[in-house]
């Protein structure tokens, strides 16, 4: 198993947060309709990941990485802060499962989340080298920030019963 050394620091990424590091880390997260974008710099061998719940910040509340447009721009900024140039970065995109029964307001939220990643990364000129989005099931992903390898496990549970303690009526991450 590539990059699963026992002593590699692990980090679970909560929805609405971002993590990027120069050091080797295994970042894991659970995704339903949420999307995680992994950015990796093959030259400096460093990477970062975000985990957003909704596509666009509409001015309501704080502009946190709960929103894709905020989360992706900030992740790119983080990578640049770590010394990666944008031209070198490659992206991998995961999540955006179809979550049913979350009311009309959340209709196709997964698909919209995934589309936003494709659109915004395209705008930044960052190629998507791999992606696994959509479908009815949640995912668990583990990203090695040094090797850039992402392991994706399909969860046999549907996206809305992810074990992340989300109350009814709130979209799964």
């Amino acid at each position, binding site marked *: *198993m*590539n990059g*699963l050394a026992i002593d590699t620091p*692990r*980090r*679970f990424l*909560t*929805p*609405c*947060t*971002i*993590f990027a590091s120069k050091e080797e880390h*295994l970042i*894991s997260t*659970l995704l339903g309709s949420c999307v995680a974008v992994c950015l*990796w710099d*093959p030259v400096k061998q460093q990477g970062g990941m*975000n985990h957003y*719940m909704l596509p666009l910040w509409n*001015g*309501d*509340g*704080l*502009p*946190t*990485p*709960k929103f894709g447009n*905020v*989360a992706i721009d*900030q992740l790119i900024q983080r990578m640049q802060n770590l010394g990666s140039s944008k031209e070198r970065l*490659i992206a*991998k995109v995961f999540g955006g499962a179809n979550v049913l029964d979350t009311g009309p307001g959340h209709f196709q939220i997964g698909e919209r989340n995934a589309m936003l990643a494709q659109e915004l990364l395209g705008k930044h000129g960052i190629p*998507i*080298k*791999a*992606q*696994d989005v959509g479908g009815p099931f949640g995912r*668990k992903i*583990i990203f090695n920030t040094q*090797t*850039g*390898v*992402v*392991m*994706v*496990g*399909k*969860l*046999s549970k549907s996206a809305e019963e992810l*074990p*992340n*303690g*989300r*109350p009814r*009526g*709130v979209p799964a991450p």
Partner: protein
Amino acid sequence: MIAPPRGESEKILLIEDMEILRQTLRSFLGDLGYSVIEAASGEDGLELAQKDHPDLILLDIGLPALDGFQVCERLKAVPNLREIPVLFLSGNLSTADKLRAFQLGAVDYVTKPFQFDEMEARIRTHLTLQRQKRMLQEKQTVLLSALFDAKVLNSKLIDMNERLRDSEAMKSGFIAHMRNEINNPLNAILALAEELLRSVLSPERLRQIAGIIHGEASHLDFQLRNVFCAAELEAGEATPFITNAEIGSILRNVADSLSHVAQMKDIQIRLIDPPDPLVFPTDAAKTHLILENLLANAIEFSPQGKSVELCARIQDDELVLDVKDEGIGISAEDQALIFKRFRQLDTGLTRAHMGPGLGLSVTKALLELMGGEIAVDSEPGQGSRFSCRIPRGQNPETSGMEAFDGNLFLFDDTEEM
């Protein structure tokens, strides 16, 4: 002069009942390089015009059945034929006839017997005019569509500009608020420190000063924690740190930290203590800040002498926190606005209160981070009740592969879509 398009000759429709004249004109026009289509009657002419779309029409006035004037009238009534220039052919035209021809939309006339040089010049002129007209129309279409694009873009820019201005105004409003929020307690603390330095004070006064300094400093600390928390949330660096928290003690600490503010307004904080020690896995510091913001908000918008209520309970395995006040209340429209950044409602009483307008948006974002949510139940004049639900927190699981059940996919850097 604008040359006709190379490779295709311009097409002239000749409507003339006399065979001999048609022959003459056909060979004359053919020599000039035009392609000629012919009709012997007005009806045939109209049909041909519709079918072949000539660039110019030579129209005899003295036609059997439909005469030239009627044909011209009909041509001008058809939208896509209207633009084709019509030249009348006639033996002798009275001034009234000429006038009528022009009124019907003809561009020119040629009288018989034909002066071929003159005829050639007239035809060339009108074809050139027609070409120029068409080019102008095409350019106009392009310009119009460019203009439309520009208008769309412009309205987008205006939109964006407005949003930027809004955001800018919000930010400067925020800075002005923050200056107040920081200056007021700082000035109070400085003045009291000076008093301490300058004079020997009675133990009572010392105690009083210590109390005020403590109150002002806690307020400052609270405001700054909100600002830093907002920055952390916006940077995606705020992570829940889950411990088994004793909720009762969080409630008491929150009530304590705001008792100074409450006392100044003579507002009673009613603490509905959970019956047993209530232990719930959550982020204690974030829960504290959520409650502190809601309580501060309740106190701020309560008139003097009223009371606010703080209550915690477990419901459906979730922690429910209620903050109730007897304050001015919030209208339904305003309820949609209160969680926006730096927003304070511009209504009567609230004008006097200059909070940084950050507290509720921080509260909402914190709850979202913890997977919870907040609801407001309020009517103007009826007080407000903010109710938060926080699900059981799980410590970031550090497990590697255990959660995978079967299908595993590897995406390394050589992967192409």
